[in-house]
């Protein structure tokens, strides 16, 4: 096993790619799911950011999405192994419905994250706790550093996703 700080950084990268990929596939940057998410996006745009990136940030705030799924899957695997991660997926599904979110980004992200985290723990290279701290670092880079730069980065990835998978308006 590597040193814990290095493992946490690698886990942060894995978590980042997992939740950003799932969120982009499920079109979170396309529009605000609820009026609050749209309002956050407009404020981000007013502050010099990008509207599509703002939509994704607003959607992450307003409902448990793939990032929440990744965090709760890591917590589930840390506390109770594979069944814990799958139970977390059920809780994220319920959380989505509580927050008026009709999408499946959170549940899907939670299931993929459960498989990734469980696989990484089984391989012996990582501990599940690395992924909990890693996901907190990953969400910090999107939501916690600069809304302007994060929204522009998401918008750039959103354009790439639209070119590759189509289906965007």
């Amino acid at each position: 096993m590597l040193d814990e700080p290095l493992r946490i950084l690698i886990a942060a990268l894995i978590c980042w790619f997992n939740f950003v990929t799932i969120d982009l596939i499920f079109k979170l940057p396309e529009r605000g799911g609820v009026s609050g998410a749209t309002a956050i996006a407009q404020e981000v745009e007013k502050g010099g950011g990008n509207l599509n990136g703002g939509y994704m940030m607003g959607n992450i705030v307003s409902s448990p999405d793939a990032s929440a799924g990744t965090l709760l899957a890591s917590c589930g695997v840390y506390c109770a192994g594979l069944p814990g991660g799958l139970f977390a997926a059920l809780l994220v599904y319920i959380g989505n419905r509580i927050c008026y979110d009709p999408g499946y980004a959170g549940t899907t992200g939670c299931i993929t994250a459960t498989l990734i985290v469980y696989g990484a723990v089984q391989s012996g290279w990582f501990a599940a706790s690395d992924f909990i701290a890693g996901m907190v670092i990953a969400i910090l880079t999107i939501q916690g550093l600069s809304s302007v730069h994060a929204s522009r980065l998401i918008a750039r990835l959103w354009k790439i996703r639209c070119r590759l998978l189509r289906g965007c308006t």
Partner: protein
Amino acid sequence: MEDQVPVVAGVHMIAIYVCAVIAVYAALRVIIERNTMRKLPFLNVVSFAITGIIALLLPHPLTILAAAAFFVGSTFESNAIASTWSGGMKRNG
């Protein structure tokens, strides 16, 4: 499954410190940011960090229920604040 659960909390202290430092940093950003809507993403980071700390400090199968309940609850609160601030729910019909 039993052998994966650490017996003593504190085995992964660096992970807990990382979460705690990020929670305090994000809380400071919430205080410094003047715009209410732009406070919410920072508040979201605080929720993530605290959920992580809850799970790391209490390695017990039921912890996942507590962590998820806290996280979904705080997300729902942010959702309510943002929707109210933007003029109420517009998709009820």
